């Protein structure tokens, strides 16, 4: 998986590309841990994310929880496969999707 960061002042945009599963979830977790300092608004761009497993959902949930105390988190460009997972797991209800 490739994580691309784009920072505009307090707004961080992370573009995820590839598979977000048990193997790659720690990578995203690490990026979040090191880059969220001073960030109040987070956007996850999932246009190129082809798969998300429960381990990946866990990291997304963690970010959602962390950002909900600030200006929030937006998930955008969710494709059909990933949206299916969000639907089945109820994530669709708790995430701000665009």
């Amino acid at each position: 998986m490739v994580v691309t960061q784009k920072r505009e002042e307090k707004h961080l945009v992370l573009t995820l590309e590839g598979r977000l599963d048990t193997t790659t979830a720690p990578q995203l977790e690490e990026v979040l841990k090191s880059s969220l300092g001073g960030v109040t608004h987070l956007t996850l761009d999932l246009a190129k994310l082809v798969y998300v497993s429960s381990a990946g959902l866990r990291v997304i949930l963690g970010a959602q929880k962390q950002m909900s105390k600030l200006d929030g988190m937006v998930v955008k460009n969710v494709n059909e496969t990933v949206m299916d997972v969000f639907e089945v797991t109820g994530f669709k209800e708790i995430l701000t999707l665009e």
Partner: protein
Amino acid sequence: MRKTFQKWLFLFVVVAFIVTFCISFSIESRQAKGNAVGLIRLKMEDARKQIVVNRENIATVRSIVDAAALAKARAFAKIVALQPSVLKRGEELEDIRRRLDVDELHVSDERGILIADIPAEYIGYDMAASEQSAEFLAALHDPNFALVQEPRRKGISGEMFQYAGVARTGTPGIVQIGYHPKRLQAAVEVADIANLSAGFRIGKSGKIIVGEAGKIVSIDNPAFLGKSLKEYGFSDKQLRRGESEFVANLQGVRYLCLSSSYEGYKLIGILPLSEMYVGRNEMGLFLVVCNLILFAVVFALVSVLVQRVVIDGIYSVNRSLERITQGDLNERVEVKTNNEFVALSEGINSTVTALKEAIAEAAARIDAELEVARAIQRSSLPGAFSSFPGRDEFDVYATMGTAKEVGGDFYDFFLIGENRLAVVIADVSGKGIPASLFMMTTKTLLQNLTEAGASPERVFSEANKYLCENNEIGMFVTAFMGILELDTGRFTYVNAGHNPPLFRKAGGRYSWLKSPPGFVLGGMEGTRYRERELLFQAGDRLFLYTDGVTEALNLQEELFSDLRLEETLNADVAREMDVTTLLKHVQSEIDRFTDGADQADDITMLGLEYKGKVKG
């Protein structure tokens, strides 16, 4: 590294080259100058000697000529004394002059008046009348008088002419002869200082310049004869020096000069710098060429040697280390070009061997621990399916194929009292020991709450609350639970983010029991779960599973998928199978599909068939 090495080597070679060249150049320069000064000094010494020799020659010739002249004068005086008559006879006098080989003969009386002469026009001339002849008057009183005068220049030709005279014998008077001292003139001409320069070349184009009172009296180029030394290019300062060497720019050429004073002459030996340095320059060129070749060879040799002995070895070791780093612990380093590399290779090899052994050991230990964890996990699940002896209202069966890693799937079914059967299937996010502990907690929670009599939605709400409170690592679990009332067939279920199960009416086809799920357990505090109901009739079936089923991958990385699962369940061959056989069939279809590919996730399935209320 090779670049760095070559850079330094190159630098060293260049510096060595420059230093060597500078030292040689300086030594050669000094030597060239020393040689040149020596050469000039030698020539000047010769020139000085030549001046001395010339003067001595002249003196010798002069004394011979003087002696001869006096002898002739005395002989003539004797003839006049013996034969005074010759004075009267011009032919005899002329004959005597010829025999004496002189040009003039003069004889005076006791008063110094000439009485006989050749040429005859001087007869009657008073010798006191001119300074030159007056010198001889002393002979009138001194019978022993003898004088040879200094030669004088005479006439337009400037030829030398000389007079010698003695007192007359027996009577007062003067006998004088006049002649061209040809030998003396020749000797003087030879000894002329103007000829000195022509006799002494220094090297190829060096020369000696002679000055006298600031004027050039001898030089190779006649155009400068008589000109001043300053005009030629020497400065006052240079001319004022005593014997010393200096560099002067003369007529556009730079010369090394050595000046010295001698007998009123200023001798200056000069040699063009270009000629003085011609040897050094040739030597320098030779040195440059030789050094360039030598250093190029050294550079190439050392470079090649280092490349072969050190760098190739290091690259080879690095390549091996890279393969080792990438996980190939069977790689061996075999660089044997020299002892150091042999030691290094052996060191690396033994380290890798030790590492391999340590890893194998650790892996074995971890495997053993995981096996224990798996066993514990498995033993916590209901396994013996004869656990409901005598219950004919339902048939339930479940399987769990664990992946290599300890996963977080689990299933459960248990009776609540006599009339209710609970079924659970769940999947914890993540893997490993943490996931399996989280799973155990969840399973126990759900069972306890259910057995305490809570409704499914309340069970999930309570379990969620508890799991959220004690969840530092942010794990969550997707779960589906349903409770079947065995007498009525009423099935109450709740879903927390889990894959919806497939339901089949007796004799019908399986289809998904789709309903908006609640959020996962342990994900968000205060999540509300909504119960739904379904009425089972005899022969109706429910198939629960985790995503390990639909996301099983084959070697081409294709998913088993919802579609294949649906097709497998609805295939004709599966239609009459009981739930136990059905689950085994689905498993074998999955195995057939994956065809030996690694199983990434737990594969868990649970089948439930309602057989209807027992009659009687």
